[in-house]
């Protein structure tokens, strides 16, 4: 029973922390750029404001356009709630393994792109085309890097994989390192951050994610934005779970949970600071350099796989 309660707690945390995470990243970036920044809570204010605003809908927007935000939001949140943040094994974590998780995100992306094409603006189509293309290239790379771990753990269930990592003695495994780098690169691409895409940009021919949201307003926009924030948090947590899961509480007692929560927040903040530093340091890639970028990630993860077989598997 308590596990179910913690499950919901965890999901809720994910949901509520997401905007804060986004705020955190932008604040850090602002500080790095010697600006004061809008503060950590700014995304929350935006969302609240957007909820209360009216929706302006293009004349011939079809039901797809209005339906999409809910699909995108729910799919992302369900995916997020599967990822263990505090407890490795929660009832829902069996609902979807890594592959299903990727698929849920893909579903969200599918509808996002459709929504982008619904109005029939040049920007929407452009965004959809690029988003789908790049994610298509990113997906195999991501699965490859996940396989490196799941082949070791003989499982694609996050819980089992976490247990596997926890149980194995901490020693340098080059394959894991390769997989980690690849995963980080993919995560940046999937969440649409610099150097692949620039979330703060508008009215540029280089934009990808934002181009699909141009026509949105009010609560629809809010849901879309929120979903993308959740996605960032999700990837961060996923990386933490797969590579540095130490600290998750194996049984559902208050003390363990608190410890896990603090550790989780710590790890997150470190990760996000790194991300912010990278985003400040790097420039955005030219559009057709992105495939090379993703290709590199794929090759890295494949190398990781081969190394795993050649060095680490005792046949």
């Amino acid at each position, binding site marked *: 029973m308590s596990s179910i309660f913690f499950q919901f707690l965890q999901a809720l945390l994910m949901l509520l922390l997401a905007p804060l995470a986004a705020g955190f990243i932008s604040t850090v970036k602002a500080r790095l750029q010697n600006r004061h920044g809008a503060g950590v809570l700014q995304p929350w204010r935006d969302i609240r404001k957007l909820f209360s605003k009216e929706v*302006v809908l293009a004349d011939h927007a079809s039901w*797809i356009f209005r339906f999409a935000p809910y699909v995108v939001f729910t799919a992302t949140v*369900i995916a997020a709630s599967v990822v263990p943040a505090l407890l490795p094994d929660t009832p829902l974590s069996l609902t979807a393994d890594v592959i299903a998780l990727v698929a849920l995100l893909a579903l969200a992306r599918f509808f996002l792109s459709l929504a982008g094409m619904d109005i029939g603006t040049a920007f929407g189509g452009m965004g959809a085309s690029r988003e*789908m293309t790049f994610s298509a290239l990113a997906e195999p790379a991501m699965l490859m890097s996940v396989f490196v771990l799941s082949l070791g753990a003989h499982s694609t*269930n996050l819980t089992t994989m976490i247990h596997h990592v926890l149980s194995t003695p901490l020693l340098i495994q080059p394959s894991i390192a390769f997989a980690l780098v690849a995963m980080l690169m993919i995560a940046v691409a999937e969440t649409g951050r610099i150097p692949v895409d620039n979330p703060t940009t508008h009215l540029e021919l280089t934009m990808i994610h934002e181009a699909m949201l141009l026509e949105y307003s009010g609560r629809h926009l809010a849901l879309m934005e929120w979903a993308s924030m959740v996605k960032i948090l999700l990837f961060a947590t996923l990386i933490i779970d797969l590579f540095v899961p130490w600290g998750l509480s194996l049984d559902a007692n208050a003390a363990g949970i608190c410890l896990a929560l603090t550790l989780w927040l710590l790890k997150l903040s470190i990760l996000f600071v790194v991300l912010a530093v990278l985003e400040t340091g790097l420039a955005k890639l030219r559009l057709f350099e992105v495939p090379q970028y993703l290709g590199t990630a794929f090759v890295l993860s494949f190398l990781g796989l081969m190394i795993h077989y050649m060095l680490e598997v005792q046949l």
Partner: protein
Amino acid sequence: MNYTLSLCFALVACGSVLLAAMLTPCWQQKSNIQRAVLSLLLGMAGLFACAAGLTGLASGGGSMVLPLGLPWLPMHLRLDALGSFFMLVIGSLVLPVAVYSQGYLRHEKRLTPLAVFLPLFVLGMMGVVLSDDAFAFMLFWELMSVSSYFLVTHEHQHPENRKAGFIYLLMAHMAGLLIMGSFAVLYTASGSFEFSAMRDAELSPLWASAAFLLAGFGFGIKAGVVPMHGWLPDAHPVAPSNVSALMSGIMLKVAVFGFIRVTWGLMGSGDFQWWWGALVLAAGSSSAVTGVLMALQQHDLKRLLAYHSIENIGIILIGLGLGMLLAQAGHPMLAALGLIAALYHTINHALFKGLLFMGAGAVLHSTGSRNMEAMGGLIHRMPWTAALFLIACISISALPPFNGFVSEWLTFQTALMAPQLNGTLLTVIVPFSAAMLALAGALAATCFVKVFGVVFLGHARSDIAENAKEVDGWMKLGMAIPALLCLLLGVLPALFIPVLDQVPQALLHTSLFTDTASQNWLWLTPVDAEHASYSAPIALLGMLILGGLAFWWLHPKGAILRRSKMWSCGNPHTHARMQYNATGFSQPLRRIFAGMYQPDEHGHAERHQHKLLTTRVKYVVHVGDMVVKHLYQPVGQVTLWIAKAIRREHQRDIHAYLAYTFATVLLLLALFT
């Protein structure tokens, strides 16, 4: 010979299509009656085929002997687990197509050929599934090919259709001959054409490989496996859409059936050699990726779908190949997993590809065009078609909670069994093929965003799209059935897989579902729950609840929602031509994979008086199929070249021929005395 309920159902199904083929010509003049009879009997056939399949899987099949065929070889029919499953596949698509045809064929001018050959085509497929000796198999197989040829060339006033038909028939015949070859090899081993004897026959590894290769190439050609696929994208689109649905949906599956029947069934997993599985896996991966990449560059709707058939056949083959590898490595249970993944994808593809072709047919029916560049905004004029088509798009893109995802998920799970294989090479290749599968899936999603976005969303790009009308009830119903099935198979796989499990039990004598896995209908857990689990019902439920909550909470009572011009970054006066079209959408991929496509592009700007004053810009791109260019055409040219040389010999004068005879006599005498 034992008659069972399932077998009787199957026979009734065959009987009713045969009846249809015989009766329909009687109403040459009254096309309404003709159409009604056709749809009715076809529908009956579909229904009974489903019944046969289900009962066959549930309570075992039967066998019988007909006094047809060779004098010393009567026709053996048998309905086993594998056959039952494919009967189910056939039935589950024939039924909706029958309903659909009732509406689709309303304005068909020359109905009679369709009304004769469509049932014969279905009969052929059912017969292949039922037949239990090589001769019957070949008989029905070729019946299937020939009748489908007549269907492909139905609209033969267009030269390109005739060409497509010709190539199709040629390739089908080649396939038939190769398959005959593999049967003949088995015959020499067993001394009989009956499958029962072939099963028991012992093959030397060499001959086994020969039979495998013959069967592989034969069925591979028919299934459109890369690089033998050249005929498929030409042939499938030109047939009437209901036929295309059957061809892509079932006929390719019958080829898959044949492959399983010969390799898994007749030779048996005992004879497998490791490179067989590797070959099948490689063929599968290449088909999957090539198919989808080619599909992305098409703007003829049905042609695009045809290329996606190639992709999906590839996915099925990946599952089969993994199964063969695992079976050869001595893990029958994991092999069963691969087999089930393949079979599951088989029925899934039958359903959503059938649905997609029917949807394309609906679009074609109401716009009169297959060219996506002329579409746009159809969702407003054909809401039903759009919704149903969308379901198919999600399914084929392997997205939860629909069925496409389940089978691809199972295939992934099989691929992750690679460590069980012996040999590092394979254990690396296999995950790589899994990555290819992932790539194919993601690209498929891209492609169908393009399809749905360009055809149904946005503004109408032409008058035909502007004036499109929604199709009639029959066609809607015909499309609704598979759509519903897609959802069911996607949400409740745990209920369907135990039914499927009969097939590996028959072929591998092992069951996938040991006690660990068979938990309840909520959880899909091959192998065991620790290993991997997926619960579509919970995910769907969660999404519904969450979405409902969000909607209920956010959607204010007095809905504040204002309609206005689109914003479009402050430039609302955009022309429909300014939208991204199919060609534009796939431009990034065309550029990324330019090495593979080798597109020939022509950009051209018309300038007016001044060199800065560009009046119109024209951009033409064509992406041809490399296989056709580098494999098919050269063969044709060589043939013609030889033919020409021989014809020159036929134009000599009489002395030359006398000399030939003279020389022949001398030669014979010299040789044989």
